């Protein structure tokens, strides 16, 4: 089985449900990087990405499926921005998929009705700047500095390494990719997104973007890499196979 965890770049967001995209990209499933990798490595695939997820969401979903991941499987985790953090959503969660979708993927059993969902804050709208800073830094006295971001990034990669160590020990190949929101805005402009190609408001991959993401992740699997990000790709990937990337 090829397992895919992470944020919307891992999930089905804007791939199967968006009618405008369907017209532009049809047929869509056969051109996704998930499908291409599953074909190449002769695996079925399960997509457990969550639109808007923070990395704690993604890791929680991995723990939920830990007992089903077997030797010979492949695990790909599309890590998200460290600026996304868990938050109690009360009744204000309005991101795509709705409460039921989030509840079912994050928990084995839905939380009690009296409990608001706790997930990435991304779906919550209309907050003031102080709260936004407080979410990320757990304090708002300090500005969001590269150090704060690096601290969360270090935490994220250290946590991911836990799973790398475990999966490797049981014969599961795995790659964590900074190709979700973790790479910042750079890949949005240059990685064949719908936004770039069709000037629509969706920043997820086009068919061409899926193809390149397939090449990148395939390269990582072939070379036993457990983590790749934009910096690595810019420095190491075969130039003739990838589009030019704009550096930050």
């Amino acid at each position, binding site marked *: 089985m090829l397992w895919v965890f992470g944020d919307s770049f891992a999930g089905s967001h804007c791939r199967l449900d968006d009618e405008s995209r369907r017209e532009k990209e049809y047929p869509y499933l056969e051109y996704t990087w998930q499908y291409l990798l599953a074909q190449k490595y002769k695996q079925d695939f399960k997509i457990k990405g969550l639109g808007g997820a923070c990395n704690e969401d993604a*890791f*929680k979903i991995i723990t939920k499926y830990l007992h089903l991941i077997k030797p010979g499987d492949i695990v790909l985790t599309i890590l998200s921005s460290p600026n996304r953090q868990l938050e109690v959503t009360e009744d204000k969660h309005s991101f795509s998929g709705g409460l039921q979708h989030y509840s079912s993927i994050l*928990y084995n059993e839905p939380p009690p009705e009296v409990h608001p969902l706790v997930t990435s804050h991304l779906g919550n709208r209309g907050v003031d700047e102080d709260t936004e800073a407080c979410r990320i830094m757990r*304090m708002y006295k300090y500005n969001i500095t590269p150090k704060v971001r690096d601290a969360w990034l270090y935490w994220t990669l250290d946590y991911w390494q836990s799973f790398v160590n475990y999966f490797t020990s049981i014969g599961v190949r795995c790659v964590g990719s900074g190709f979700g929101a973790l790479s910042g805005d750079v890949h949005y402009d240059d990685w064949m997104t719908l936004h770039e190609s069709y000037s629509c408001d969706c920043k997820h991959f086009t068919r061409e973007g899926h193809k390149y993401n397939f090449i990148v992740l395939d390269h990582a699997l072939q070379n036993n890499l457990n983590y790749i990000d934009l910096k690595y790709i810019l420095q190491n990937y075969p130039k003739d196979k990838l589009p030019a990337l704009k550096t930050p």
Partner: protein
Amino acid sequence: MVEANTFWFFGCSMTSGHGLNWEWLGDNYQERKKSKELWQQIGDGYENTIFPKLLADHFGMGYKNYAVSGQSNQTILVQLSNCLHLMNEGDRVWVNSTWPMRFPIPHPELDRLVETMVPMWMNNDGSLDYQDELIPPIWGEDRNEVIKLFIQKVAGANSQPLQRVYKTALYDITLHLNKIGIKSFLWDATERAHHYQGIKHWKPGIEDAHPSPKGHKNIFNDVLKEFI
């Protein structure tokens, strides 16, 4: 010669043996403990009375205790995950989930997170209160305002949903470990700790609720029932 299996422990002060055992302070703990008021009040001689050591000894297993006083559920979860690849069939794992209002936060000058505790409760009138003196200075001079904002807008005044997030993740891992022959047990300190004799009952005058040697012994006896 067959290598002995290991009994792994993860959690907060309830499992670190706070007050009786100071190994959780890490390197040079023998010196570092001397600055702790609780050590000055209790002293040495109780290191081996804590339930994790009693359990490891009882089963004749190796002992690895990663519990640290004041640790958050978020960090307990990461530490448990960090050790998964080192565990072997026949090992045993104890995980204690802790109070939810503890958060690692980014250090303003270092590229890492630091653990902080926010002892918080809600009054009958719905207002929030917390033990100001226990909140570390890293939260800043305006910490009361910041913490109130964080609790109300981010963590939620009712901390149970946040607690549930981490407990279910910890539970999923312990279930998985049980399936692969590593007997594991999740124990929620927030629900269980008050059942056991505290240091304050053992030594009147010391205001500390962590388990006394008798409290540890009783936890040990209760846990044995679950592990047999």
